[in-house]
């Protein structure tokens, strides 16, 4: 029995080439106003700036760790901007760009990586669930949430993010089955960034990831993950399809992790600089910048103003992260349970007394 022929990497939906040329796709038309184009570019720039600043803050010892998104800005902004009010995004720990689109203050993300909180935002306030650090766990949760949307007859859908590494997890595959059999309004958005820390895509799959969808009974689409327009168009269409009751879909955003897995990682041990260089030519920001230029949709002032805005944002994050207070020991105990728990209360009181005794001794 023959295994289906190899699908070339560039078999994907693309609306804006790396050279900044607009191309059409009959299945995924996108009519986008100039204002929105400028605003998408603004998001890309600011998200990249947040990522760069956070990386620097980690190097300066202000963060314990940072998971970089460099190279994945278009995938995240394209998907994030396809969500509407009432939709719920289920992120991994790298979805800083989606968080930005859902109005989660980047300082909250920095707090998580600084160690002042394990999250702390309310998903309901932002349509953005808490970061999931165990890869794949968020997928069945997204399906459950989508089943709730379905039960409520809400005209919304969930979108769940994961990577090529997590695509091997049982929970991810289980969630495909659940979404399929319950026809749940959920879109699986897989950022295939080619690497799971040091493991290449070939260690996770023998077929293109998007093709797995059919085996589970719903459509899969591969999109140029470095093309924000394509990511937006495909995500919008699949989310609307889910909201309309047509069920789940899998989007594989074909992209590249330009940075390390996290600031603790050293990619020089397992991949070639030449590969990274090749992907640099497909940069998600440059193509939009080039398009805006060529179409004369912006003047020089636009870019200067945006650079300035990015610098101000970076400054706010620098100042903000250094000013983040360490949580009180009380907070460790405060939310272990929603309702009173005698053991936790006793330990809280005993530890407070223990600390108070030191203060008394020092006095």
């Amino acid at each position, binding site marked *: 029995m023959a295994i289906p022929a190899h699908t070339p990497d560039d078999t994907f939906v693309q609306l804006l080439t790396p050279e900044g040329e607009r191309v059409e796709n009959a299945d995924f038309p996108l009519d986008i106003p100039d204002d929105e184009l400028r605003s998408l570019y603004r998001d890309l720039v600011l998200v990249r700036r947040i990522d760069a600043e956070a990386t620097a803050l980690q190097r300066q010892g202000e963060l314990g760790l940072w998971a970089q998104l460099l190279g994945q800005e278009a995938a995240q902004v394209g998907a994030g901007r396809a969500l509407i009010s009432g939709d719920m995004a289920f992120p991994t720990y790298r979805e800083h760009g989606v968080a930005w689109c859902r109005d989660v203050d980047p300082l909250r993300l920095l707090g998580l990586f600084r160690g002042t909180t394990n999250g702390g935002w309310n998903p309901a306030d932002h349509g953005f669930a808490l970061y999931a650090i165990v890869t794949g*766990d968020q*997928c069945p*949760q997204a399906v*459950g*949430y989508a089943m709730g*949307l379905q039960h409520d007859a809400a005209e919304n859908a969930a979108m769940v993010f994961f990577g090529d590494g997590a695509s091997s997890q049982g*929970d991810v595959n*289980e969630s495909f089955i659940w979404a399929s059999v319950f026809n749940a309004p959920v879109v699986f958005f897989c950022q295939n960034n080619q690497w799971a820390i040091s493991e290449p895509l070939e260690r996770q799959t023998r077929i293109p990831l998007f093709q797995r969808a059919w085996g589970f009974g719903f459509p899969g689409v591969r999109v140029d993950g470095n093309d924000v327009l394509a990511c937006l168009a495909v995500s919008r269409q699949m989310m609307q399809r889910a909201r309309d009751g047509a069920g789940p879909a899998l989007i594989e955003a074909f992209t590249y992790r330009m940075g390390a897995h996290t600031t603790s990682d050293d990619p020089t041990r397992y991949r070639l600089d030449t590969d990274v260089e090749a992907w640099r030519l497909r940069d998600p920001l440059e193509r939009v910048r080039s398009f805006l230029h060529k179409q004369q949709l912006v003047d020089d002032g636009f870019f200067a103003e945006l650079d300035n805005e990015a610098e101000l944002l970076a400054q706010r994050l620098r100042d903000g992260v250094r000013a983040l207070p360490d949580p009180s020991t009380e907070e460790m105990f405060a939310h272990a349970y929603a309702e009173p728990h005698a*053991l936790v209360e006793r330990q809280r009181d005993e530890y407070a007394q223990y600390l108070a005794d030191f203060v008394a001794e020092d006095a």
Partner: protein
Amino acid sequence: MTQTLTMVRAINAGLRCALESDPKTMLMGEDIGRLGGVFRVTDGLQKDFGEQRVIDTPLAESSILGAAIGLAMRGYRPVVEIQFDGFVYVAFDQIVSQLAKMHARSAGQVKMPVTVRLPFGGGIGAVEHHSESPEAYFAHTAGLRVVTPSNPVDAFHLVQQAVASDDPVIFLEPKRRYWDKAEVDTAAAPALPMGAARVVRSGTDVTLVSYGPMVRTCLEAAAAAEGDGTSIEVVDLRSLSPLDTDTVTASVRRTGRCVVAHESTVFLGLAAEIASAVAEECFFELESPVLRVGGFHTPYPPSRLERHYLPDLDRVLDAVDRSLAY
């Protein structure tokens, strides 16, 4: 209204009340709908509350928990059934890493009112993976509550309290006591809050602590010992997290002796925690060391051997005798 109910029917009645009182309550699990569950605990509930609220799921325990978490985020109050104790481990990650921690992760903004119903324990002649006692894993995990009824009356009330709790609750159903019967007043308010233990038999010579399926064994042991002139006080813990140590230590202060019995392996089991609490709180009142009776540090044996593995009346009384002889 008082009815004679088995524990199966009592839990069924409790779930029915939970479904009636809160439209956000949903049941999910394998075979819980048309079949009514392999033990028939959910019998008739899908017929009465519909397929939207009583849901037969794919055979994927991890996702049963994951989906319940997502539904809870959406404002639902899911009650999930894991068909057998030995099947819960594939859902362990969702329970320990997600369900137990979501409330803290959100700084108290996301509630996880999820009940995990889990038939547990041995004694029914089952094949491997159908007789386990995993309670210590869950009681050890901060963020979870763990309760287990020993009789139909408690089962009726505890299951409703578990569903009503805004915290995740592991609700352990002692499957070999599923068919025990009792008079259950389904109109009565619960006599105790969910986290409280109960002295189920008063005595003066030794405190015998247990929970779930072993409570009946302990009561039978106490009745047998009475004939020999030994007065045993039996404490039914009911809740394993939080643990009502006050009720236990108050009893031990009266009797001066303590034996703890459970099916689960004694090594690092609940009995060790009880022994520690008693030693700490009742050091000067104790006449003898706290003794433990429980399963051996072996995998649960083939069922033809389970009568040796499960502590019976004689092994419990043997420990009581050793405590008294000390």
